[in-house]
């Protein structure tokens, strides 16, 4: 009996560890950021008020809650700098995700169609860049894209351009950096679904009079939709909040939201505004995640 009780305790613990983890490392920090977003900036340490002062007793608690306000959210809504920054991030994330899909789908399809021995090698090649730090890879791109860099050398040598164009500090550089860095996150989920695709379904389509190109639209693409959704979300969500790539490769005229948060936090020392921007971003990103969860649950019910 005691042994059984012990086992069930362990089982409960195993189930609860992820919840405890989420509580300690996501919900609690989130609550702290939420609280800071409702505060006002102050020249103090920490640089905001109010701060909960439990030594002042009940009066301290009421003063704390009385000091909270939604002023920062009104500020974000009213200032085009923030709105444009959000729009810029969503725009870049949307176009970059589309490019990733267009580039990644054929790559994943080709890998899924090679012999199993080659598949392992090719998948390894896809994840090979992860063995180097993202920062170093982005620095390498800075080197390639600079005015006297490799890209311009090649373009000049091929006489494709007369004067070397500026690549750095443009949206093109951001797109190059993002598509390069996120390609594995698009290719791997697509590969996973395409690899499972039953080849006899394509034979059945051909048998029923469907040419190959049409069978792709009628059979392959619908049956890989779960991989497309997973890949799109895996890319779109982090790209919206991307900081390193636009900061190093992009210009500063129209910053992405990650850069805006960074400037508020470290440049302006305005923790409350930075927190409010971050909270709004999380709320924006939760929407596609909820849609994905809904899709995944429906797919699970189907199987």
């Amino acid at each position, binding site marked *: 009996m005691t042994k059984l009780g012990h086992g069930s305790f362990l089982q409960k613990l195993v189930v609860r560890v992820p919840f405890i983890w989420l509580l300690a490392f996501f919900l609690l920090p989130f609550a702290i950021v939420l609280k800071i977003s409702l505060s006002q900036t102050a020249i103090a340490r920490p640089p905001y008020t109010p701060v909960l002062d439990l030594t002042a007793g009940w009066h301290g608690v009421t003063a704390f809650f009385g000091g909270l306000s939604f002023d920062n959210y009104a500020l974000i809504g009213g200032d085009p700098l923030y709105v444009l920054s959000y729009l810029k991030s969503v725009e870049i994330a949307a176009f970059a995700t589309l490019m990733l899909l267009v580039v990644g789908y054929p790559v994943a399809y080709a890998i899924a169609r090679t012999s199993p021995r080659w598949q392992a090698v090719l998948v390894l090649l896809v994840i090979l860049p992860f063995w180097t730090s993202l920062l170093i890879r982005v620095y390498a791109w800075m080197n390639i894209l600079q005015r006297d860099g490799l890209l311009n050398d090649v373009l000049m040598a091929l006489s494709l351009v007369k004067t070397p164009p500026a690549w750095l500090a443009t949206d093109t550089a951001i797109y190059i950096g993002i598509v390069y860095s996120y390609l594995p996150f698009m290719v791997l989920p697509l590969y996973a679904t395409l690899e499972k695709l039953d080849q*006899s379904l394509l034979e059945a389509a051909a048998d*029923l*009079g469907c040419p*190959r190109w049409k069978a792709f639209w009628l059979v392959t693409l619908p049956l890989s939709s779960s991989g497309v959704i997973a890949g799109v979300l895996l890319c779109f969500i982090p790209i919206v909040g991307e900081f390193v790539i636009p900061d190093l490769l992009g210009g500063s005229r129209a910053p992405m939201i990650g850069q805006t948060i960074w400037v508020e936090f470290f440049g302006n020392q305005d923790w409350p505004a930075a927190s409010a921007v971050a909270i709004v971003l999380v709320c924006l990103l939760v929407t596609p995640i909820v849609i994905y969860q809904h899709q995944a649950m429906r797919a699970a019910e189907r199987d």
Partner: protein
Amino acid sequence: MTRPGFAPWTDPNLRPLLRIEAVSRRFGGFAAVDSLSLDIYESEFFALLGPSGCGKTTLLRLIAGFERPNAGRILLDGVDLTSVPPHRRPVNMMFQSYALFPHLNVEANIAFGLKQEGLPRDQIARRVADMLALVKLDTYGARKPSELSGGQRQRVALARALVKRPRVLLLDEPMAALDKKLRGETQFELMELQRRLGLTFIIVTHDQSEAMTVADRIAVMERGRLMQVAPPAEIYERPNSRWVADFIGEVNVFEGRLGDDGMTVDGTTAGRLRLAAKADAEPGRIVFVAVRPEKVRMSREPPLPGLDNSVPATVMDIGYLGEMSIYKLRIRDGVVKAAIANTGGGAQRPASFGDEVWLSWPPDAAIVLTR
């Protein structure tokens, strides 16, 4: 089962619907189909039978167009199909895995092929409805394949192929995934359907009783070649080789030397055997006498002297199958199997373990094989 009076393959003036001419398909150094020629006729129910790996599925896939032959050609209605891609061939296939589209419901699965033909919407709807009624799935049109039982899925696969009105319907192990009882019922339904629609069916199976039940003719395949092509009864009663005799059902084989008169075989494990007719082989050569277990009679007393072949034997083993029992018996230098019908009531058995009995069979029950 052969239909009485239906034997288009005996008419030399009739053009076959499907003609396979010296077709080979090699994978690396291995010939899955080896220079094989075969004619199949209009509204025939034809079975390709053989052990796994004999090339029967490759042959079916060659007809469907999923495989290209390395040599030879395939003609349908006299038209060379060899370079026609699968989506333009007037043949349809029912896949062993059924290959139903999991993202489409039953109706859309069946309509898929008709949509490719660009038929008007109302015509597609009518033909799909007719087909659903034919396979008795009228109320299942809106279901997804995952919501169907194995037997229902099999019917959808059949309907999806039949709705295209193919010149030839190819069935790749169509009943392999069904349980035994359902398989038996489905075999008869399939035959009935084929007769009603008057279509040509080619079925691939490794199950000999299935092939015998449904087919007008059976092609027995081994290592990419045809061993024998004949109606089921002929394959069973007059196999052309030891391999076919052994593959189709059980058989006792006695090896011996053909006597000078061509009517006896000497030196077998059952002694000298008499034949019903002069064997079609030169006297003095080694031949094989094949006797099916159900043709062997068993008795306590020695049979009356006559024309029957007889041999004393000892019961070694009895396998009770219900309607009959399989007896394994020892004769002089070998073992013989006899299938004895259990016609007596109760647990009565004509013989028990260790009993001394006599086995006999009429000379016309034996088949003489030279290879």
